[in-house]
């Protein structure tokens, strides 16, 4: 194992030992405080183009599991950890975290003082970073000159429609970088799923006559997406039950006139109390967000706030006053994360049933 370096845009450097791929990469560096679910996190498309620092002291000890993929091909730019374990649970071949990252050409660094790095990042917020062999001036110049893409959704979302057929309700998922957890939850409800690209037209969706629509999770800044997406949402929300998740929630808010604000320091973890405002119940869920809906900009005639993060006060859920449409900032698919958040899907399917019943009675 060879020594490599992490350089941040502000000039800070960290040393560590290399694992995974020996590639040199650039990305936006963020930190994650979840203690479990490293495989789900590094395969989650929302982290496309980012380097993730893990607070949990050891990663890799649970192996790489067939049922813990959130996408088949991870596209993070780097994984920075304190200690690395080399456990494999694969029945066919040795597949530990190190080999997994090698296979996907993702560099990793371990034996890094991740606590120091996280304490630093919580002050600076996310920034550009690179993993290199030599921490010289050239590497710093390269980093400063690099422009990171804001086309993550385009990179991650499906360009072609596909189906996940079953015999239950017909749910259309608009894909902005969908994670498997959402499909898994829909599978639990035996939903007949059509996944459509975000460039789909209103006509194409309505021709399919869905019982419900999900605006999927996805990476990056939703404001980088074309206006047509917001139009699509505005039309569909008035016709079919809709659930927006993560980026889908942010788009739902934008479509209804609210604005986003970047969080001072991105929040990625599963330990913040989230309160359902109507019942005052507190629960926990996986969260991963660089933006939050700016509450001051919410049009109270259209939307109301349903969930709130009790630590930073950030809006965690919205509901439309006139339509059966709602959204959550957190990830209710529990992959990884607490199961209690999955009640959001129960709410959604209840809305879907109401909608179906309404038409059946007519």
């Amino acid at each position, binding site marked *: 194992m060879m020594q490599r370096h992490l350089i941040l845009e502000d000039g800070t450097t960290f040393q560590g030992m290399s694992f995974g791929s020996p590639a040199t990469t650039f990305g936006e560096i963020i930190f994650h405080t979840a203690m479990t679910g490293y495989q789900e996190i590094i395969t989650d498309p929302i982290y496309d183009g980012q380097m993730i620092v893990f607070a949990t002291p050891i990663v890799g000890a649970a192996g790489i599991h067939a049922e813990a993929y959130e996408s088949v091909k991870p596209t993070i730019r780097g994984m920075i950890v304190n200690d690395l374990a080399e456990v494999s649970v694969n029945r066919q071949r040795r597949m530990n975290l190190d080999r997994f990252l090698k296979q996907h050409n993702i560099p990793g660094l371990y034996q890094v003082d991740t606590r120091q790095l996280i304490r630093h990042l*919580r002050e600076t917020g996310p920034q550009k970073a690179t993993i290199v062999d030599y921490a010289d001036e050239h590497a710093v110049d390269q980093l400063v000159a690099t422009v990171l893409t804001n086309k993550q959704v385009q990179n991650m979302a499906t360009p072609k429609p596909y189906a996940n057929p079953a015999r239950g309700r017909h749910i259309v998922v608009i894909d902005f970088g969908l994670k498997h957890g959402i499909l898994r939850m829909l599978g639990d409800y035996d939903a007949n799923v059509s996944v459509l690209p975000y460039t789909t037209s209103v006509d194409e969706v309505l021709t399919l006559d869905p019982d419900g629509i999900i605006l999927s999770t996805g990476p990056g800044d939703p404001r980088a997406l074309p206006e047509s997406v917001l139009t699509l949402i505005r039309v569909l929300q008035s016709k079919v039950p809709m659930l927006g998740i993560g980026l889908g929630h942010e788009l739902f808010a934008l479509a209804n006139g609210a604005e986003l604000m970047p969080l001072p320091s991105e929040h990625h973890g*599963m330990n913040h*109390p989230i309160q359902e405002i109507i019942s005052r119940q507190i629960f926990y869920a996986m969260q991963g967000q660089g933006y939050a809906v700016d509450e001051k900009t919410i049009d109270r005639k259209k939307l109301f706030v349903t969930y709130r993060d009790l630590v930073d006060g950030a809006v965690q859920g919205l509901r439309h006053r006139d339509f059966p449409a709602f959204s959550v900032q957190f990830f209710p698919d529990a992959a990884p994360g607490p199961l209690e958040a999955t009640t959001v899907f129960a709410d959604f399917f209840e809305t879907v049933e109401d909608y179906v019943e309404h038409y059946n009675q007519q």
Partner: protein
Amino acid sequence: MSNTITNNKIKKVLFIGAGANDFGREGEHDAAIFQVMPELRGHGIEIFIIDDNPYALSLESLAATVFWQQLTVDNLKKVVRENNIDTVAPLFGGESSLRLWAEVVQSWAHGDGTVPSTLGLSIDMLLKVNNIPALTAMMADIGLPVINNYVLKAQDEANELLRELHLPLMVRALHPNQTNTRQIVERLDDFEDAINLAKTQSVTQEVIISRAINGLKEVSIEILRDVRGNKMQIGASEDMDPIGIHTADSLSVSPILTIQDQLIGRMRDYAFRIADMLQLKGVMHVQFAVDDDTHTIYVIKVSPYIDQMATRMSLATGYPTMLVAINLAIGVPLEEIVLPHDFGKHVAMMEPMMDHVVVKLPVFPFGELEAAGVHVNRQLNSVQKSVGSTLGLGRTFIEALEKAIRSAHFNNASFSPTNMKHINDDELIQQLIHPQDNRVLLLIEAIKRGYEIDELAELTAIDEFYFYQLKYLHQLESEIEANIDNIDALRLGKKYGLSDGLIARFWHTDFNIIRTLAKENGINVTYKSVEPSAGEFPENARQYYATYESENESVQISDNTVLVIGSGAFRMGDAAAGGYATTVVMSELRRLQYPTIIMNNNPSDATLLPHLADKQYLEPLEVSDVMKVVELEKPKVIVIPGNRRKLINALRDLNQNVVILPKTKHIPGGPNENQSEFALNIFYDGQQAYPINLTQHMAGEMRVIPQVAHIPDTIVSTNFEAPGVYQVIYYQSIVHWVDRMDLSNMGYDSWIRPMPFGQVAYLSKAMQTQWLRLTIRAAMDDLTSRDIELLQTINERPIVYPYSMIAADINYRLHLQPHEVIDGTRFEMGVGVKDYG
């Protein structure tokens, strides 16, 4: 209405202490009660506490009205009645208090008045929690995966059941009287014995039999629930050792490392559903058996009360479990809990995250017992054999493990890589299948001999992660051994927690040389704080551990600090009262307004409670660990138990100002069956010796002799090393209690020793005179004129409580199966009191 705090009807709360220390009861309950009583008083509630344990700190608390009495149904009822108690808090005293309170409730007669309510649990649920089959059935009803129980009534034949069930089986008592042992029966021949033992432990002679699930992983989840039904997870650990070895005897690791998120999520969900089922207001520990190949999970134990897991998790994460628990119990919703200002704003509601590894290592009494000629059964099974535990904190598993091992006072020789060479392959395999206390060494030896990891994982039912870790440790040690004076090897060794002493052994030199070498090459210790946000937020941490990374977070807090060195794990013998002694010393130093720093690694005693010190180091207590803290904190004074000679000398060599808490190096034995041990007790304030009283000690019991004591001329100041309580000991062949003892009988064979801490605790309570506080005041030159006045007349004052101290009834046969008799004084675990009127 759900947001109204329901504590308006709570006016008088009685805490039930845990009683004498025993296997699995090492002071954590007393520490919890001691911590929560002032908090509850802050809510305007009047507090009462009953306990019989002379080592109980809560009996010295100023926050409560104290009843130092035997824990019996009658005494409890009397205290409740005479003080108009409206609410009883048994959950903080743990399983034994809960059982006692359930007994009181069940025997509550019509004329006894209204049954006080139980803090945190309804009476109905309290009784269910005490009845395993009823609890299991309730859980099965709501769809939780439990293991079916078969109840064998007193007159039933067990053979019928054997036809239905397959070995191995678990056997335990229904309606246990005190102890309830989980026995695993693997051979048909052992079945009858197990049933018979369980019957003796049951009030109704009924026995529960269920399928044993040996070999699965054992996982603990700690959660809490508030009055509104909000629930959160506040800790989790996995045992390295599989089910079949008692969890207290297992090496436990936090956070959970080898189990995937989905399975942990399911366990969390089950624990939440159990808390809802019980309508619990408070904290709960749920134990699970997990098969991560088949994704099968069983709920195996539900403990909706404070236990060792609760206190350990609080230390491991920095989450203020006890303060939150008492608020929940009186009905304050999670969202409205106000913590002392030095905790972060949202700490109570945020699930604690960890960026370090915590290893809990059990401490077994085998070595000390064998040195005294007592042979015991060392094989680990479902009956607890460990008497204490230590915590090791580090950034890696290896570092945490190494530190836990050093904290347990293994000397380097017994953890030496060459230690296991003599064992042959057959024995090795036998011990892998039937592990003993030294299994970590054994696993390393097996790796060294080239056994494949999957083969070992199969044999031992230990996750392969641990073998990879131990293999790496072995490689690391070999590399260091092969590269003497190599700085890179030293750097790596320090990073993974190898001590200066261990590296010195590999390099055939002294630990001071290693320390200097590391320093010269910029390999410096860094202290990281233990705080529940894992770095996400700035927290005012008080708790630190050492590691070797780049950023150090600990800075000197003052140039006027007192550093107190704790006494480590709970052990048999006088160390049982060590935690008590350290805590009282800390409390007195705080009262005298010295900024205090504590170093310790015992998760169970009260020394690491959040507010007893300005700063805590969860560290091993070897000379090199202490030196590093001393270099950083530059304490004005260092308080050390007197048995730590090497440490005392090392610090004095560096011109440190050391205060010794007088304590003998060797555990004192007690009188045999045919004699009495008499003691003339003396307080020495650094200048002058004051007579206290005389005590008589027969095997298993000790009393104060009602007589004015005087110090003979033969005793001079030079007999005493430092301020403290001492005793002149002599033996006589007397086997009855005496009212007078003529000091001239004191023969030439008498000798002086520091009074054992256990006796100090007892005398402090019986006399209502705080001897340890006086000791520390004398040592710090803070005695007042009132103190002197008291000391001058103390020998003439009668004792306040005419109680004798009695050895607790510890079931050594069950736990240790000793071949010889165990000296209950020398190897004491717990004590109680008895009124001799």
